[in-house]
């Protein structure tokens, strides 16, 4: 049995099905991210784990104890979890020190110990010297750290974070990403993290769980999810992708217009129309193809120099492919081009 077992969780708000049959196991010390577009149910799932929402179906079990089941949920204060809210939820009527000390006071920890523990955690999140400040005097990044310190000081086993970086500017977001990751490694706390930003999810997570419309689409390591998306939604959501219509024409071959590509696929039945997903950076402009690679011939329609890459639009006979070549590529509009692509990069999916 895993550390956290989420078994068949479902939740409806009125007639609206917010979560459907969520099935997930999380190991201790894991960094798991719920990723998906806004409104897909990530926050609902996180709040169900926290005990703010009682599920309509399924159970949540932590270390063998059922915490949530249909119609019943252990209240949040008894779950020994921490949570960082999207808006930080720093109490404006308390100083930084009092904010962080809150959980310890509730737990009747002795004053002297509160002092030392708060001081230690403030130092850990880089807020030493700001204990007496009031939240109104803090920047967004500092408030973020207070929120972290406040949930970490009580030493929870599980920390829930709901889009904690979404209110920060881009630079600070990058830095906090690194700090969060370091913090998680150092404390060994299980992080369950919610975001709609796939780059953030990939940078942070041991495992990503992709949500869409209240359903789990796929779970796996960042690389798995990026390279082997389970469906078109995941492929799209994880980054730019070419979606090309084709047709099975062999056990591991799909015809696209005039070209026949060797592909990889998990599909059992290999006949009929399909969609092939190919990432733009997997298409390499070449002069000669290597053994085993697919070769696609076309004409450059457009070429845009973007600094680190060159963005190409290549016509392969009625179909346009988006190609990201390296910056030494000098192809211009009108040039003929040959594109090489590994069969493993051609992921075949059912049409939707």
């Amino acid at each position, binding site marked *: 049995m895993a550390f956290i077992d989420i078994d068949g969780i479902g939740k409806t708000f009125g007639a609206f099905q917010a979560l459907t049959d969520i099935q997930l196991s999380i190991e201790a010390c894991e960094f798991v991210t719920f990723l998906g577009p806004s409104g897909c149910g990530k926050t609902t799932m996180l709040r169900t784990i926290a005990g703010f929402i009682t599920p309509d179906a399924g159970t949540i079990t932590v270390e063998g104890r059922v915490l949530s089941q249909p119609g*019943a949920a252990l209240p*949040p204060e008894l779950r020994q979890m921490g949570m960082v809210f999207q808006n930080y939820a720093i*109490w*404006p009527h308390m100083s930084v020190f009092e904010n962080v000390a809150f959980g310890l006071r*509730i737990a009747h920890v002795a004053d002297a110990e509160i002092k030392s523990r708060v001081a230690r955690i403030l130092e850990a999140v880089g807020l030493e010297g700001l204990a007496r400040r009031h939240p109104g005097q803090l920047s967004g990044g500092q408030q973020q750290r207070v929120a972290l310190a406040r949930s970490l000081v009580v030493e929870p086993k599980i920390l829930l974070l709901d889009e904690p970086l979404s209110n920060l500017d881009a630079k600070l977001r990058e830095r906090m990403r690194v700090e969060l990751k370091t913090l998680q490694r150092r404390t060994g706390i299980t992080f369950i993290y919610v975001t709609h930003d796939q780059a953030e999810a990939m940078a942070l997570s041991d495992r990503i769980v992709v949500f869409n419309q209240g359903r789990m689409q796929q779970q796996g390591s960042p690389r798995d999810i990026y390279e082997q998306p389970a469906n078109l939604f995941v492929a799209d959501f994880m980054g730019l992708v070419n979606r090309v219509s084709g047709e099975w024409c062999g056990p591991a071959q799909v015809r696209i217009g005039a070209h026949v590509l060797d592909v990889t696929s998990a599909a059992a039945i290999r006949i009929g129309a399909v969609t092939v997903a190919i990432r733009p950076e997997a298409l390499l402009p070449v002069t000669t193809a290597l053994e085993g690679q697919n070769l696609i011939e076309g004409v450059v329609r457009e070429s845009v120099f973007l600094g680190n890459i060159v963005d190409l639009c290549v016509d392969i006979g009625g179909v346009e492919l988006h190609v990201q070549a390296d910056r030494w590529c000098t192809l211009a509009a009108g040039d003929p081009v040959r594109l090489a692509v590994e069969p493993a990069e051609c992921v075949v999916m059912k049409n939707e």
Partner: protein
Amino acid sequence: MGQLIAGSLRGQRFGPQNLVLGLAILVLLVLVAYPMLWLILGAFGVPQDLTLDNFQRAFTRAQNYSALANTLQLGFGTGLLSMAFGVSLAWAVARSDMPGRQIIHLLVALSYITPPYLTALAYIILLGPDAGLINRLLRDVFGFSLGPLNIFSMNGVIFVISIHVFAFTYFLTHSALKSIDASLEESAQMLGARRWQTTLRINLPLVAPAITGGVLLSVIDSLALFGPQAIIGMPAQIVFLPTRIYATISSYPPRWGEASALSLVLVAMTVIGLGLQRFFLERRSYVTIGGKGVRSQTIRLGGWRWALLAVCALVVAMSAAAPIGVLTLTAFSKDWIAPLSLSNLTLAHFGTALFSDQVAARGIYNSFRLAAGAAFVAMAVGASIAYLDLRTNLRGRNVLDYLAMLPLGLPGTVMAVGVLLAFIRLPIGVYGTIWILLIAYSARFIPLATRSVSATLRQIDASLEEAGRITGSSWLQSMRRIVVPMARPGLLVAFLLVFIPAFSELSATILLYTGGTETIAIAIYRLNDLGQIEVVCALAVFTIAVVLALSAMVHFLSRDRTAPSEGVG
């Protein structure tokens, strides 16, 4: 599978959250729903009978019929006057470069804050047919033999009520005018529209719903104002629905059924008015789209601004300065009939009013404790209902919210009839004690507290409370350490918003008080009947001073209510 958690859930069902909120629901039902139920049952003759006779009598008995007709006439008259006063002043203050706009605005607020029965008393002193100060002045100057103005008339009632209720029209129109961004007008002007064309084709359609809504609110309020209707209407033998209901219950034996039926008629008028008002104000929504950063165009009037100021000054002089002035003057005069002179000044009436007169002193004491009690109950219930509505997913919570808003549509007289019917037959014996007043006041003003706390609670994000829960504090601890401290200024405002009207409440009190439970309003009402005008005025000045000080406090608190949460996510 691990152990189930049904046990801890059962603990929750009777946990403090459900106890506190459940208690609030119970109080709300007892205070509002239960009397309303009895009002309706009573109108149908229950418990003795089940009949429609009462309604028949309500419409056919001559006195009832004329009360109904008078009430409609009153509503119509106050509607017209409110529109005339309210719209012109609102335009002058919101859009023109008239001097003294701030002062005019404050004086309109003052006319609204002054309890209307005190304005009525002031106008008896000013415009009484024989001894009225203005009448005497007019007689001296122009040589009339009597009159010439008589406040004891239908026009008198309409006038006195209008100078109170026009404030609704004023405030709604003012805020609508303020929320029209100048760019809307400038666009019209760029297209060649002249000033008057812009006003007619752009401004008027934009604020028309606000004007209509404001006038309706003025009318609705005027129907329910027992004080002026009784103080001016009764001597003139002009009866309105509230005074008619009062008479029906004060008759011997009291005709409960008929009074209930008349009450329902009054409620129906109010509810129709409120429904219309809501309809018009909802259409107004496009005005407020501009939001905060609205820049409004000021219209330069040149020399005309002094003429406009004269008009506005006349209106606020009638509505605020003259009545408060004359009450104050009379309170300090040995004899109000005698001409103004230094030798005629005295503080003695305040001594009488505050200390030596038994009824007055008891009234002050009762009003303070009743207002404080009702404010506390209404605030607690209002806070719980607002919390239930905003923070829980309890089924039927919008019904509760509606119930908490219901008394807004109930004139004080009607509330009193309902409370009487409901509690007179209970064996707990609250009738004839101060408790029945506490019940009526709390019920009547729960909407004010609910609305106010609701606005406060909306500013406190739910996550602040949830952060407390997940950090290990129970619901009660989160309330005590997070929500209540943050909401404290808002709760205080809610408390004051109830305290202020409860302190000077007359229309429900008059039906519910007995010897020993007189309030300040009753003391004023009764001493006025006894002709002790100077003592009445001293009490009036005291009341206005209290109400004014507390209103200023509300204003002050509301202004920086948002300050503590500034800069938070």
